[in-house]
């Protein structure tokens, strides 16, 4: 009985932690934001910018894994190859309001750009 409760609680925690919880967003009014690509994550992974604000996302890839090599922003038709240990800038202008997910080819690295 106890083990079942523990197991079901574990499942509930998995659902809450990975799907329901909304992490804090990095709100920026700067025109540039540095995003580190390291250890399987983008950091920050959740960015909020204002509509009509031109912004340059500067991806600094520190992860050797080839999975981190390609960055895609499908809603903006952007695909970029990230060079190891270098900053790859992606300049965005007039980005439509809403959420724009950015991720690697396999969607293991994931982040979101929210335009409000």
């Amino acid at each position, binding site marked *: 009985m106890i083990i079942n409760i523990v*197991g079901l609680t574990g499942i509930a925690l998995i659902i809450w932690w990975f799907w329901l919880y909304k992490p804090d967003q990095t709100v920026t009014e700067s025109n540039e934001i540095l995003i580190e690509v390291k250890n399987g994550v983008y950091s920050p992974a959740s960015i909020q910018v204002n509509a009509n604000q031109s912004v340059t996302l500067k991806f600094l890839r520190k992860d050797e894994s080839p999975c981190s090599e390609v960055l895609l922003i499908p809603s903006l038709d952007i695909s970029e190859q990230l060079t190891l240990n270098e900053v790859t800038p992606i300049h965005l202008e007039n980005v439509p309001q809403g959420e724009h997910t950015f991720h690697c080819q396999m969607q293991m690295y994931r982040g979101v750009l929210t335009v409000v």
Partner: protein
Amino acid sequence: MSAEVTQRQLVIEGAGCASCVGKIEAALKQTPGVQNAEMNFADRTVLVSGTADSQLLVQAVESVGYNAKPFEDKPDTDVVDEKEAADRTYYKKLMRDTFIALSLGIPLMTYSIVVDEMTVETNVERLLWLAVGLLTLGVMFFSGRHFYIGAWKSFKNHSANMDTLIALGTGTAWFYSMLVVLVPEAVPLMARHVYFEATAMIIGLIDLGLALELKARGKTSEAIKRLIGLQAKTATVIRDNKEVQVAIEQVLFNDVIKVRPGEKVPVDGVVVEGHTSIDESMLTGEPMPVEKSHDDEVVAGTLNKSGMFLFKATRVGKDTALAQIIAMVKRAQNSKPPIGRLADVISAYFVPVVMIISVLSALAWLNFGPEPALAFAIVSATTVLIIACPCALGLATPMSVMVGVGKAAEAGVLIRNGEALQTASKISVMILDKTGTITEGTPKVTDIILANFSDEKTVLQLAASLENGSEHPLAMAIVESAHDQGIELLKTEEFNAITGMGVEGRCEGKALLFGNSKLMASKGVGIGNYSEKAQTLAKDAKTPMYFAVDGQLAAIIAVADPIKPDSVSAIKRLQANDIRVIMLTGDNKETAAAVAKKAAISEFFAEVLPEDKANKVHELQQQREVVGMTGDGINDAPALALADVGFAIGTGTDVAIESADITLMRGSLHGLADAIAVSKATLRNIKQNLFGAFIYNVAGIPFAAGVLYPFFGVLLSPVIAGAAMAFSSLTVVSNANRLRLFKAKDH
């Protein structure tokens, strides 16, 4: 963001004298945030240190009358070299990690197979297994650290990835084993089994899989590497009457560049001195070298075969045709066709779902499993976590697209994105524009039938002299023909163009008339039975025109736009692939019928205006056809845009890269058949990969959870799961690599 002191390099344009140096340096030094600025006059670059950004620096240089651009982009060749070096280092690291992990894992696994007992019953066994547990911890630290760090970072980020599954699986096995060793009484006697060999073997096998996958991935980008390899690294620029060897990224607009025989053309430009032949096959696929002399265009990446020449740079850096082609291929290689979207959706939810299945599996064993239920629960939960492979799903589409788009580029076909690739594989109707697509697009004089004149050369001389200066394609064909035969043109007077009929004028005292039968009738020139000869020519896809001298018919001159030599075989290739080929043209019915017959096309529409071409595309789409439209990208723009896939025919390197879904770099229609063949092969490959990845996960996860146990008493070992997981993504990459062997011409 805090402003950091950095060094930025600018390339300066328009600095022609040494005194410019002081002016530019002074302007930069007065810019807020600039600490120092030093200009190298020889290569026209300036190095600026400080906190000012590039835009401010460019403005400062422009304020004193020069142009500047930031020099930050590395040439693609350097990027490729660096990437290969980084991949080699990472490969070595993964192989070292594999060696360390398997050095412990293999002996342990061998022991478990031979002895078939890894239980903890006595204190001596506890001590021995404790030592093994600590060694396994060492393996986890040295060889598997990247999984645990990645998993932790992802967890903090509220996301989960492959690292999460591996870290949870190996971590569960290790912690359970250590619990058995350290607090055996906490675990039922029958369940006192250790799984250190599983932890070490899984880490070793997955590291090995990653290393082999890295190698295989390198091969998928061979096509783009070949394109990048076409770029020259340096150029010989003439500055201040001296030859200066500069890096390719320092070549400026309007620089005069010297190219010796055997050298590559470094940037795009126009020949200003010299004569040579250039091999453009690497870009256009055309095998014959092209003669180049004054005012002819040359493009970056092509090979100078014979003479030395000077040319003026018109497009440099990222603006060259080659750089744009490379950028487009790279972009397309990373884009996904719609077929991959389902896999994307699944990937996004995959890992947490697997974690839930793992918990459910453990609960099922604990509730309904035989003894030792705890051990079974641990094994099944671990195996579920390890066997699940989000990578195989995630890699299935992009790896095939990478190879397929590269393969197409090698055949001179530029595919804009994954969607175009997928749609091209489904095309059921191909609409071909006639002029410039099926035909050469440059009319030529094909027949001169003499009437009341005995000298063909004089007829051509007079007709060409009359038409000289006209920009009408037919007139240009006649003038061109005279030039080809070395005929000197004469001065004409009283030239008059008669709309819809032709032209008239005087030359050497003779009254000349050139045009259609209406012109002859209106001027009272009898054409007699020559009208029948003209009709025969028209039926043979030629345009006949009457030429009269001093009121008497002198000759019929026929002009035709010849069909490209390989158009017929290319059209037959399309038809053999069950594609309905339709020709559209603005020409009259007779000419259209004649060209269609010669080109083996049974369906055609003549006298179609450009806007009606789009209507025709729409009409076919309403009949549920998937329509491909092929045109020159200018007149056919509306139809190209409306078609499911628009193919632009590029003539040589003058490609309208952004104008269509697919651009054919050479003029041959075989490019169309190649594009469709590559698209079909790529889609087939993607489907194989997706099917394999889905089946692997759909079958593997329940198998790992133990669904076969009640029937056959079989439960999968976590080590086997680790090996299967490691090699599933390798299989996907290897299958994508098979596409490299695909030969479009055979299809």
